[in-house]
């Protein structure tokens, strides 16, 4: 909806968003999205719903892969050669204030793609009446802030149960928690996107029974109720994407790792399932896959930065599932003959990370045995103790810049795996 179509309160609120964002950017206080959004919502609590009126909104949520999938979905919805006309929250500001800021920043965009924190999905669905909701995965993350993972699945289920066929849910059929939530929806496209971390889905979210997986196949089912892996419209195969008819289509993804192939497939299926917006029709699955094939870096993930004379490839991992996926990637690369550079692990436990780093003990760091490791970040001492018991040789350096120099002493580049605020600070050179 254009500003002229909003009521006086909403127009005032939009003005406040712009003023606060401008001021916050000038003062150098972050990217200015959250401050403005908060100011706007304080003046008009219904601002998000009003700003979404008349637009098509796609929503992306899940524990891991949200930012990457959101970015890929924007690309998949943008025809080649045309300018991007999609409103989206690219900075990771994925709560209501960030959504408001994204919509205010692109007043003319008839299409929005919004990444949402798992705990705010229900509110965003109610406020924006989305045409597509992408549900990637659910696993333990930030237990001191976000409710326990089963409670999140229940909230998702409730939010989707009220939606009619105008909302298509694109759901990962390999994740029992996602399946439990998504099957309450009227219209679902099931995607076999794989599951890195199954430890949170052993207990059936529907009945408390036991979820058993087929040995050798992707199937899974609860042993005491009817929750089971649904038939998929598309699933990851070794050589591409297997469609429900059995046909395999090629998929090229420049981003590394199996988890990014999963993100790409989810984004492509979502794009193909979307409603036309602003006169632009939804792409076919093949078109969507082609559009996202060349995306090589999303929000700095896997980007190489130069810090203190050292080239560092930055990788983000925020929770046990995310770390396991990155360790899988390092193994994949080592198997394919890529030399294993020294590794810097950076862990913080600030508010955005969760204040309790006990999750370090759920990460299989034992797999790093034999590599050269430097532990850093606010909580490098927790990490050092974890690495000690994993019997991984390491040195500890509280200062990330100095840790990078130490790792880069040999003259080559280094790999960095960092959790959320540690990654952000390294990327921004703070």
């Amino acid at each position, binding site marked *: 909806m254009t500003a002229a179509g909003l009521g006086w309160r909403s127009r005032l609120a939009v003005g406040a968003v712009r003023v606060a964002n401008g001021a916050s950017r000038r003062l150098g206080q972050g990217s200015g999205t959250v401050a403005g959004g908060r100011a706007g919502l304080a003046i008009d609590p219904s601002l998000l719903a009003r700003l979404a009126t008349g637009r098509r909104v796609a929503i992306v949520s899940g524990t891991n892969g949200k930012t990457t999938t959101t970015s890929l979905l924007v690309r998949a919805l943008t025809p080649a050669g045309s300018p991007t006309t999609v409103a989206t929250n690219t900075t990771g500001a994925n709560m209501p204030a960030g959504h408001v800021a994204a919509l205010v920043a692109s007043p003319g965009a008839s299409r929005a793609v919004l990444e949402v924190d798992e705990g705010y999905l229900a509110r965003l669905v109610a406020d924006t009446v989305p045409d597509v909701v992408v549900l990637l995965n659910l696993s*333990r993350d930030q*237990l*001191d802030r976000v409710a*326990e*993972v*089963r*409670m999140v699945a229940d909230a998702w289920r409730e939010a989707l149960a009220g939606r009619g066929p105008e909302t298509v849910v694109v759901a990962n059929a390999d994740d029992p928690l996602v399946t439990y939530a998504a099957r309450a929806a009227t219209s679902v496209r099931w995607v076999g996107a794989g599951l890195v971390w199954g*430890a*949170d889905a*052993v*207990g059936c979210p529907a009945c*408390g029974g*036991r979820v058993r997986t087929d040995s050798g196949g992707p199937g899974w089912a609860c042993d005491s109720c009817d929750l089971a892996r649904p038939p998929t419209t598309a699933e990851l195969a070794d050589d591409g994407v297997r469609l429900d008819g059995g046909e395999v289509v090629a998929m090229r993804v420049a981003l590394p790792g199996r988890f990014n192939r999963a993100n790409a497939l989810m984004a492509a299926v979502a794009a193909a399932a979307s409603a036309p917006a602003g006169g632009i029709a939804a792409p076919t699955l093949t078109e969507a896959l082609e559009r996202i094939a060349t995306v090589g870096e999303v929000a700095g993930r896997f980007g190489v930065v130069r810090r203190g004379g050292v080239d560092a490839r930055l990788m983000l991992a925020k929770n046990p599932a995310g770390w396991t996926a990155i360790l899988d990637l390092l193994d994949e690369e080592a198997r394919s003959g890529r030399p294993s550079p020294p590794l810097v692990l950076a862990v913080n436990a600030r508010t955005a990370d969760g*204040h*309790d780093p*006990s*999750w*370090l*003990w*759920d990460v299989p760091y034992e797999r790093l045995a034999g590599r050269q490791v430097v532990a850093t970040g606010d909580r490098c*001492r*927790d990490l*050092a*103790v*974890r690495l*000690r*018991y994993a*019997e991984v040789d390491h040195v*500890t350096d509280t200062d990330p810049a100095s840790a990078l120099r130490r790792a880069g002493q040999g003259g080559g580049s280094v790999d960095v795996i960092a959790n959320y605020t540690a990654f952000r600070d390294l990327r921004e050179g703070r």
Partner: protein
Amino acid sequence: MTARLDIVVVYPDLLGTYGDGGNGAILARRAAWRGIDATLVQASSDRPLPRGDLYCIGGGEDGPQVRAARNLVADGTLAAAVADGAAVLAVCAGYQLTGRAFPDASGRAVDGLGLLDVTTVKGRGRRAVGEVVADPLPSSPSPAGRAGLPVLTGFENHAGRTAVGAGASPLARVRHGIGNGDGPDGGAATEGAWSGHVVGTYLHGPVLARNPALADLLLGWALGGDVALEPLDDREEEALRAERLSRAGRR
């Protein structure tokens, strides 16, 4: 000295949410580094619980906690092993279910194992989330060859309030945080409880990563009483403890 030590992590499929599985790994390593033949078993809830010398029970969500308690009562092995002198470290949801009763998600009382004389009810105030510092009481157990346990540090995340009965003793007095929440109006007073060879605590971190002396107390018990263990190079744990103790109360 027993040459062998069987360490059992109880139901990681139900009670493995807060990284507490690390406690079992820490115990196994600290035993192995001293030349003790330690076996670490991850005991899944769909099989009979194996007999062991040392059991670790971790934190978990409300529903799985009730299932774990029912399974353990029906299985009977844990109670029998404790009667034979096995040691137990029980954390958070695991601590609650080793007691007489604890609340389910709706607040209704569920029977616990009764291995510790403690009773947990749903707290009326906010969930207790944050750093804890707690001073062991003079009556608390001491690892062989040491004068008491040093100050305890950990991270708590729970809604329950736990009263320690006459058959058990509180483990420590809270300096920072909430712990058992057995002070006036659900406020801080004591943290954890122990009796015999069973220790319960609300501390994550995991607790043994941040309190290696507690790990050695449990290993000593599991090895059959007053066994003095040779010291290990715990400089990294000491650095972590010093940092956490200096940070508690500040963020």
